[in-house]
């Protein structure tokens, strides 16, 4: 197997997976942030309504 070609092939696969993984991590972080915001606002509304 051509070593140089193999390195670039590996680079291509790694770049694709890294980009997809980065997006999934970003999505997870946004999910956590939204849930925290929602909980805080629900608490705030409950407190103000009391």
């Amino acid at each position, binding site marked *: 197997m051509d070593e140089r*070609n193999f390195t670039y092939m590996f680079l291509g*696969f790694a770049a*694709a997976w890294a*980009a997809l993984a980065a997006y999934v991590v970003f999505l997870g972080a946004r999910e956590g942030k939204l849930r925290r915001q*929602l909980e805080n606002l629900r608490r705030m509304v409950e407190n103000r309504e009391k």
Partner: protein
Amino acid sequence: MREKLLYGLALAGGLLLVRNLYVILLGFENEASQGAIYRIIFFHVPCWFICFSAYALAGGSSILYLWKRKTIFDDLAVSAVEVGVVFTAIGLLTGSIWGRIIWGIWWTWGPRLTWAFICLLIYLGYLMLRRAIEDPTERAKNSAVLCIFAFTSVVITYKAIDWWRTQHPGAVLSFRTGGGNIEPAWEYMLLFNFLALALLSAPIVMIRMRQEKTQREIDGLRRRTHEL
């Protein structure tokens, strides 16, 4: 039930991708002129299938939003566009790495590559437009119109290899050429990888749609706290 479906789809997609990777790396011989690098097409081409499908889904949802005015269609459009943008970026990245070996350059301003880049910029513009408009109804309406027009860039990108002479390789898949341009085993692998990536993308779109719904709930609660 919904959570189980999400995990089930992601698991099926992940397992199929691992199986495909095993066959691509160990089951296939090196290509005579390209060596090992040709294997990138098994991810590059399915990535473009995914982003084109995602943009088509977003365009269809935008039409449905303008017709029915139901927020679920707006949620689906933005979720599909976001996934499409990620796969467009991956498609450009993997293509660029392949081009570095085969053409000796990372990038060329040929019609196919240029239109693919324009396509990415237009959909990034769509996502930026959504952030710029505060009113939810206005945001959904304006972005739906942009999303429908943006799909023309997808069609031009797809047809660029037929319409212009370009450095990018021509069509190889049977449904475009009538067959004979690619080894059947490679074509099956491209389709299997498309299936695997589609199985992985579906839960991502569903999670992203759920986030849009949560964001609307947050906006509603914010308005309520201001009123109280």
